[in-house]
């Protein structure tokens, strides 16, 4: 089975996000960048299914600037076989990113295309379904676990208050969320091996974004009031919720 996993380089979840002088991007100084946590689930899923099948190939692809090579190396160190960097001067989002990825995937042989459910920087949750639409293959999003059998994928997907079971014809795309695939740590051996694995770089032409976002900080939440200590503070809390906040 041949799997392709699309991955993105994003600021660490701990990072304090500061808006840059241009008002539409973030200031990267002092920010640690990591492999998007949801993409880690997708890489793990691809590796697990390859291991279960006892054969196959996992290729990771990223579109972004030169620094994304480091992110691809992380996925190679986890165990992916090969990597492709579609090199652009910036990391595109949404449809612009989907177009670049779809154009690359189109020319490849694959059974599965996996994505993280969303990138934790743009929070769009769009690229997976968009790539699938552009490729004309079926897709399901927010998958916690899937099985592969006889050219068919059975996927469990999170919905409000439960789960849906979806059957897909291969080749297909899945976006993976937290569930059955706990990402492995790259071992020292894995990190050493990753250095020797193929990482192909190709120039990508990225559409200009349809519109540029103006960034702002959310209103600071004022630290509120400690109503009191222990259970005796409960009646006062409920009184405030009822008469001041008017939420109950």
């Amino acid at each position, binding site marked *: 089975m041949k799997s392709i996993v699309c991955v993105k380089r994003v600021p660490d*979840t701990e990072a*304090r*996000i500061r*808006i840059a002088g241009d008002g539409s991007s973030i200031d990267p100084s002092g920010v640690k960048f990591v492999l998007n946590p*949801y993409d880690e689930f997708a890489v793990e899923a691809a590796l697990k299914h390859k291991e279960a099948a006892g054969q196959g190939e996992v290729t990771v692809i990223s579109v972004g600037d030169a620094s994304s090579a480091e992110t691809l190396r992380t996925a190679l160190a986890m165990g992916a076989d090969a990597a492709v960097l579609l090199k652009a001067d910036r990391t595109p989002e949404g*449809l*612009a990113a989907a177009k670049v990825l779809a154009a690359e995937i189109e020319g490849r042989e694959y059974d599965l295309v996996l994505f993280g459910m969303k990138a*934790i920087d743009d*929070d*769009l*949750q*769009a690229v997976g379904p*968009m790539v*699938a*639409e*552009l490729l004309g*293959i*079926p*897709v*399901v*999003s*927010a998958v916690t676990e899937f099985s592969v059998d006889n050219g068919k994928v059975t996927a469990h997907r*999170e*919905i*409000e*208050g*439960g*789960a*849906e*079971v*979806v*059957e*897909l014809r291969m080749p*297909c795309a899945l976006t993976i969320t*937290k*569930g059955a695939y706990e990402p492995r740590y790259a071992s020292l051996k894995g990190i050493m091996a990753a250095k020797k694995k193929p990482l192909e770089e190709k120039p990508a032409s990225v559409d200009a974004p*349809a*519109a540029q*976002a*103006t*960034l702002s*900080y*959310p209103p600071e*939440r004022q*630290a*509120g*009031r*400690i*109503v009191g*200590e*222990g*259970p005796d503070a*409960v009646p006062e*809390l*409920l009184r*405030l*919720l009822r008469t001041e*906040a008017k*939420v*109950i």
Partner: protein
Amino acid sequence: MAGIFAFAESRDGELRKVAQEVVTAARKLADAAGTEVHAVALGGSGLSGAAGELGKYGADKVFVGESGAFDRYSPEGFTTVIVNFIKEHGCDAALFPATALGKDLAPRVAARLGVDYLSDATGLDAEGGAVSVTRPRYAGKVFGKVAVSQKPAVISIRPNVFQAAESPKAGAVESLDVDLGSADFGAVVTEIKAAAGEKLDVSEAPIVISGGRGLQDPANFKLLEELAEAFGGRAAVGASRAVVDAGWRPHGDQVGQTGKTVAPTLYIAVGISGAIQHLAGMRTSRYIVAINKDPEAPIFKVADYGIVGDLFQILPRMTEEVKKLMA
């Protein structure tokens, strides 16, 4: 202007509450742009009665597509019907709910139409012919505002943010042809598991009571469930990642950067320290209450009200007092 499309989500023949919110948001945009709201509901049969109600929230026309094939969500079927509808009727903006279904459907619709998609909007405006969208990025650490010049602007809106408001219109119901012939879909929902439709989801509940590692044992979540019940079916129980990772609660309950983003009117954090990744998922809640024995816990920095103390003593008292209030 060519109308605002509003997708009215249903489940088991019933419209979901978020459908009213989507139509309300569409009404506001339509008024600003001087155009009509076209609400579309798709599902199994028996939907038209429910759909008729959407006029109350501002739909000028309600299109109902009923088909046995739509008893369950059909990813490709819904996409095709909606794209055909938009091509035929035209639209300036297409609004979807940022629910599991909406977030699966809207980006496909956008890609098939060849336009961008903005998810989880918390603010919408129409200015000078363009729809502008405000939405959280970096899990709400910053917000981005975009004026979308492409048509249609495909957007999903965050549940609970656009409060449903009545703004009655004729809301004439028309039926929509959803016969897709012998379409052979590559993805089919074969089963719906667990308490779907019954259990209130953290992303939609007006009150969310979340528990963290301070609960000490999965069995103690019953204290949160009892409190949620005391609120009379309006509250859902959520969790921090620490307890989800420990296997105490399912991932679907996790609030935070790698869980769900929630915006209830009341968020009660119990035995949760308030790590940055947790705050990212709940800081847009209208009111936040924290219960924690550590007065230095970061959660108190974002909470409107806090009680310092042992949750095992505070929760039973709270359940008792809420019951009295609700009686």
